[in-house]
């Protein structure tokens, strides 16, 4: 990032620019998804009609209804047009519009992902601070070891282990699902019930990012705490605690934000796996069932919406990063 005109753009203009840059990306994604899915073998009709031979007229009717008999390019153009109008098609499998279906699931996945990210960030920063403060002591070594190991454990295995220990052996938490099925809870009980069901999947999902955040926080704090700026501040009598918090952490925030933005795509992947282990009815599970059912519209819808979410998150992190870091000029 070379610095050009010193007047620069305002933050708002930078944001708009980034948004504008995102649009061709989105269109490219739509095209890729669409082509990909339509090149695949397997006829979605037969997956829809059940176990016995289907009368030919009905199959034809379904085919027309879902537009499967038309030329691929026509379908693509129509599709792009539809997307921008908010119409992502109709799910064969669930009989509701794709947009409704995916957004409904997306909310559940986002709850899981966001709480994991928040949890991981807080815990990770705590561990990272401890590690940096007690650098090169046993505490530091444990933190580093933990972070490397935590980063190496596959998220679906940690999920299974958590179930084995906390749900099966200790019986403290349910082994899966969104909520208790039978009880029609309301109010506080409802939220408490949901929260209990969310704890284990959230832990499984956040393990990797706690590990990552710990390491990043530690490294960045160590870098910052030893810089000349800090020495100068200390010599002016500012307490080490003040230095730690005001200068060190603030500058560490940036790499953390970057990490989260960069890793968001992986968090999405992780949640697909975690949802499967815990039977959490979110987008990840929907993805898998849609693949088995050859539910084309839903599949395209998921890929598209998830990619857009990623783009938005990347956008936000870029903007937040630009906001926090005074050194960045808005290019």
């Amino acid at each position, binding site marked *: 990032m070379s610095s050009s005109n010193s007047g620069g753009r305002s933050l708002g203009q930078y944001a708009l620019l980034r948004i504008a840059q995102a649009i061709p990306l989105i269109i490219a994604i739509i095209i890729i998804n669409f082509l990909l899915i339509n090149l695949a073998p397997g*006829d979605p009709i037969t997956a829809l*009609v059940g176990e*016995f*031979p289907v009368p030919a007229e009905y199959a034809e009717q379904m085919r027309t209804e879902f537009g499967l008999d038309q030329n691929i390019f026509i379908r693509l153009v129509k599709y792009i047009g539809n997307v921008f109008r908010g119409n992502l098609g109709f799910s064969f499998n*669930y*009989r509701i519009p794709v947009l409704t279906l995916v957004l409904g699931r997306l909310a559940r996945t986002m709850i899981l992902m966001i709480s994991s990210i928040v949890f991981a960030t807080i815990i990770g920063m705590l561990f990272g601070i401890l590690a940096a403060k007690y650098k090169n002591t046993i505490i530091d070594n444990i933190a580093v070891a933990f972070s490397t190991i935590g980063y190496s454990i596959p998220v679906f295995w940690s999920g299974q282990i958590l179930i084995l220990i906390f749900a099966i052996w200790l019986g403290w938490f349910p082994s*899966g699902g969104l909520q208790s*099925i039978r*009880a029609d809870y309301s109010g506080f009980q409802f939220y408490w019930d949901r929260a209990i069901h969310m704890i284990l999947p959230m832990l499984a999902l956040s393990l990797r990012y706690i590990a990552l955040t710990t390491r990043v926080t530690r490294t960045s704090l160590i870098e910052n705490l030893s810089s000349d700026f800090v020495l100068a501040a200390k010599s002016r009598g500012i307490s080490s605690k003040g230095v730690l918090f005001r200068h060190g952490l603030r500058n560490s925030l940036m790499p953390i934000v970057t990490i989260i933005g960069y890793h968001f795509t992986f968090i999405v992947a992780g949640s697909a796996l975690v949802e499967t282990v815990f039977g959490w*009815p979110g987008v990840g599970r929907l993805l898998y069932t849609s693949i088995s059912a050859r539910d084309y519209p839903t599949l395209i819808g998921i890929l598209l919406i998830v990619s857009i979410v990623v783009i938005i998150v990347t956008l936000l992190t870029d903007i937040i990063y630009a906001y926090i870091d005074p050194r960045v000029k808005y290019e």
Partner: protein
Amino acid sequence: MKNNLKTIFIITLVLVFAFSFGVVRAETPQEGGDLVIGIGENPDHLNPGITTSYPVAAVTANVYSGLVWRAEDGSPQPQLAESWDVSEDNTVFTFHLKENITWHDGEAFTSEDVKFSFEEVLPEFHGRFQDVHEFIEDIETPDDNTVVIALTEAYAPFLVSLEVYDAPIMPKHLLEGNLDNISEADITVEPVGTGPFQFVEWERGDRIVLERNENYFDDNAYLDRVLFNIIPDSASRISALETGQIDYLWGFYFPRAEIPRFQDDPNFEMWQGVRIPALWFAFFNLEHPELGDPLVRQALMHATDRDLIIELTQEGLGDYNVGPMGGAFDLTYFEEYDYSNLYPFDLDKARELLDEAGVDELDISVVVDPNRDDLMGAAEIMQDLYSQIGVNLSIDTQERAVMIESVYENRDYDLSLQSFTSGGDPAVGYHRLYITQEFGTPFVGATGYSNEDVDRILAEAATIPFHDERKEKYREAMDILSTDVPLLVLYEEESVDVNDVNLRGLRQGLDVRSRLDKVWWAQ
């Protein structure tokens, strides 16, 4: 003394009275309560008239009705039809419908609904009814409560094919004129039927709620509501059952591995048995150079340890003493054509036959649906066993939609593992496996097997309504089929249901999903 005797007498009387009252009370059906059933998949929609999918039928079997329902012994019992007369030659059926039946939206139910369903809806859209329809010549409705169906010739399974799973009666007043767009019609997602339960709501991917129909034409149901909870993950389903969040799991959705867990648990009742036989087997592609040789097929039959497969993939539940059309139907089972007698597990014998056929090493693949644990397990066992006789069986996982295209439409496969329901009568479900079939239609025989004699014999067998005579026909067929072995038959399924021990009245119909109106809670 006399006073004591009197007291004892009174007390005894009171006790006896109380005891018998208590006993009687506990066994008299009580009204009230919800039944929560767990299912493993989201139904595509809620219209049983246009699909034969298991979850759709499961949810709607008590919302819609058929002319008859089948009792545990398989016999047809009155449902919409109070009684029926059959002509001498078994080709004309006159059904007398019950009076005062109304649809859930209040409209009156008449014979017109039956005629409409049988002529315009089901033949167009319902896979199983199509077979029945081929035998129907004419349908008359002389009055609102009478339906006369004339068949082209006698069709043995006719009456039993009129249950709600094969011939659900659809409302003419809601579907007339809507047939071009039937999958968009309101009733496809908001069913309107005549059954003991009516539809309340469907939370997509979560659950379907039914409530008691207070205007049911028979005795009202005991339960207040029936809820179907959709739990795709089998481990969660088991948890839900264990913790009482659901009350009942049908075999279709109950993972066999969990049998030990519930077997001796006093909180649960476990039922094992065969209701509607279903056959587990693999198609042989007879176009394949080696597989086209009956010796090779017989060799592979010898190399397949069906007992082991049942033990490892079905927790030991299942019957491998079966012939080409299973072993549960008396009509089609003969000891002399039992595969465990004809082709017992014997790897040496298998190797011998291969040598005789001139086959040294064989590389073949088996198409399996990876979502079916039982079939995947069978494939892996077969892979291991066959490797010991020089046959390299590789597993080709194909999701259902892909499998349908490669196996049924293109016949591009070597072996393909499947399970087929008999539909309650061999003519309904099993004939299609052995008669000559064209390319293209899914869920019929895909082996390419074509034997004129078999075609003729089976067609005849379908028209004979008399048990012994019919059985003799099947004997002829089994003789040919058990030598030709166009299908690698594995076993016939034995089902397991698990339910809360306090439920009563379950499984009164042949199909375990039937007659939920007879279910009640003994608290």
